[in-house]
């Protein structure tokens, strides 16, 4: 039956190829919308959990690194948290603008002060990591290495201001300890990492203020109870588990998801219309042939199966092509969207998740097959004698 359906579709190659391409475009759009609807959320979650830190502490009323706000007692608090047996790692983070000279020009750098004993911002790629108390070391990302030409072991100058007076006071000679991969760095950003005391010295900040604390909960402990306990311990600090952050992120993306859903539904509907229209034309053209099949003893169910098989085959071919087209367009669009300034490079808008892609493909196949239901029903119910009579005249 599938072979017969394929042969029937091959009778009008150009028409069916064009329809197949139309279905492919609709399928590609649906696939992209499915990837877009959940893609950012999944990508965001993956990024937040990339080093296994499930809790973030930020200044009250803010999200981590959403503002430049800081909260007091950060390093002390992270030390207290590290002493909790349910917590396997915790580290405070403080950001600040740093500068260095490359030739005659002043190069701005995004500086991050970390506690090496509990940092969740980078992964070491080459060289050595910072160690607690290291006030002369620096780790750099590949973008900084490329721009400055710094190598592991080089001694370089860093300062915390552009004003010559300030720069002179705060300038430090530091050694490049290692090259790291920054997990939250945006495209074009040049990030360097130093220890918390060094960033304070470079940026001239006194006191124990930090922008964020990242907490990794031990394997045998539950995240939410730990987060709740930290909230009770530090009511002046915003404590969010990754699950909470994802939920807040999801709320922000509600309109985005609704748009994806609407566009996805429209594309599914367009696919159904294409298959349905094409099969209706095909059935109308072949009513005489169908009446003959009925006359020689092919059952109504047999006719329905034949028409549905054509719809399914057409959908399958269009959807197969649409899958490839969808992945290519998603990659292309992702390339454009992820260049937005300030957006972490690890964030993707279109994430091809196997389950979602499979669900979309099945929905398309089912819709394509069902799209043949009306033409199939018409074909099966066509009056045999009247159709044959019309064919003969």
């Amino acid at each position, binding site marked *: 039956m599938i072979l*017969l359906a394929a*042969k*029937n579709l*091959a*009778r009008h190659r150009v028409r069916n190829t064009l329809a197949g391409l139309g279905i492919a475009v609709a399928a590609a759009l649906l696939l992209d919308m499915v990837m877009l609807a959940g893609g950012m959320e999944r990508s965001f979650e993956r990024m937040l959990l990339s080093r296994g830190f499930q809790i973030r502490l930020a200044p009250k009323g803010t999200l981590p690194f959403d503002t430049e706000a800081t909260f007091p007692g950060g390093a002390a608090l992270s030390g207290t948290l590290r002493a909790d047996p349910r917590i396997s790692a915790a580290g405070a983070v403080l950001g600040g603008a740093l500068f260095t000279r490359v030739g005659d020009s002043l190069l701005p750098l995004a500086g991050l002060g970390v506690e090496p004993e509990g940092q969740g911002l980078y992964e070491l790629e080459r060289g050595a990591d910072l160690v607690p108390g290291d006030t002369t070391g620096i780790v750099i990302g590949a973008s900084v290495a490329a721009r400055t030409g710094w190598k592991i072991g080089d001694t370089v100058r860093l300062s915390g201001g552009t004003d010559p007076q300030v720069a002179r006071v705060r300038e430090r000679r530091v050694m490049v300890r290692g090259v790291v991969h920054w997990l939250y760095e945006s495209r074009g950003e040049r990030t360097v990492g130093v220890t918390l005391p060094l960033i304070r010295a470079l940026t001239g900040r006194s006191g124990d203020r930090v922008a964020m604390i990242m907490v990794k909960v031990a394997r045998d402990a539950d995240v939410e109870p730990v987060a709740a306990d930290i909230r009770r311990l530090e009511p002046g600090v915003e404590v969010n588990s990754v699950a909470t952050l994802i939920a807040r992120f999801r709320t922000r993306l509600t309109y985005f998801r609704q748009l994806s859903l609407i566009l996805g539904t429209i594309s599914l509907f367009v696919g159904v219309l294409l298959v349905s229209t094409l099969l209706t034309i095909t059935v109308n053209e072949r009513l*005489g*042939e169908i009446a*003959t*099949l*009925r*006359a*020689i*003893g*092919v*059952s*109504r169910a*047999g006719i329905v199966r034949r028409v549905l098989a054509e719809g399914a085959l057409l959908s399958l071919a269009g959807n197969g092509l649409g899958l490839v087209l969808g992945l290519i367009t998603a990659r292309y669009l992702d390339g454009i969207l992820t260049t937005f300034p300030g957006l972490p490079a690890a964030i993707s808008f279109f994430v091809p998740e196997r389950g979602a892609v499979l669900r979309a493909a099945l929905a398309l196949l089912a819709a394509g097959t069902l799209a043949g239901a009306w033409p199939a029903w018409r074909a099966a119910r066509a*009056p*045999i*004698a*009247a159709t*044959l*009579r019309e*064919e*003969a005249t």
Partner: protein
Amino acid sequence: MSETAVLLEARELTREFRLGGRAVRALRGVTVAVRKGEYVAITGPSGSGKSTLLHILGGLDAPDSGSVALEGVPLEQLGDSALTRIRLLRMGFVFQRFHLLPVLTALENVELPMAEAGIGRRERGSRARELLDYVGLSERAGHRATELSGGEMQRVAVARALANRPALLFADEPTGELDLTTGRQVLDLFRRLNQDGMTIVVVTHDEHLAAEASRTIHLLDGRVNGSSPGALAP
């Protein structure tokens, strides 16, 4: 008429159509009987109700009133599935325009009703080849329907009609689309089939074809206007 058992019997058939808002009475109380082994030609001018009668006799259409029974089974009492099954297994149809599936080969077209009847691939292939050989087209078995001439297509249609060993073969203007020579081949085929025991009911304008029949039923204005033994009448 011989004493052979009645295979098909129709009583007081009426059928009315609406054409352009006007009622057309295609059949006005037609009663006919076809005995086993008969070769019946239904003739008459255009619009006399020949094809309508054939469609009703073959279970392709239902009469407004009257009854049709095949081998004693009243067709009007059957549902669509049962009627379709009877058409598949007990009747064969040949149409003026052949109506072969153009995407299939001659062999596959002949196999089609057997596949629908659930006959296995090997058996139906073998029987389809036998039938194509019977109609003189064994060398054309692998050709698509579109690659055959009109006469060849009609002979493939006859082979297809015989696929499930029907009790009765219906043909609606089987030579209508053929030239004299190829029409002749179909006539010869029908004669041979009837000689081999096949009961045939054929609607035709073709005098030669009608002359081959053992009996001719002449229709005029939806009524039987006479019945005469043909050249092959026993």
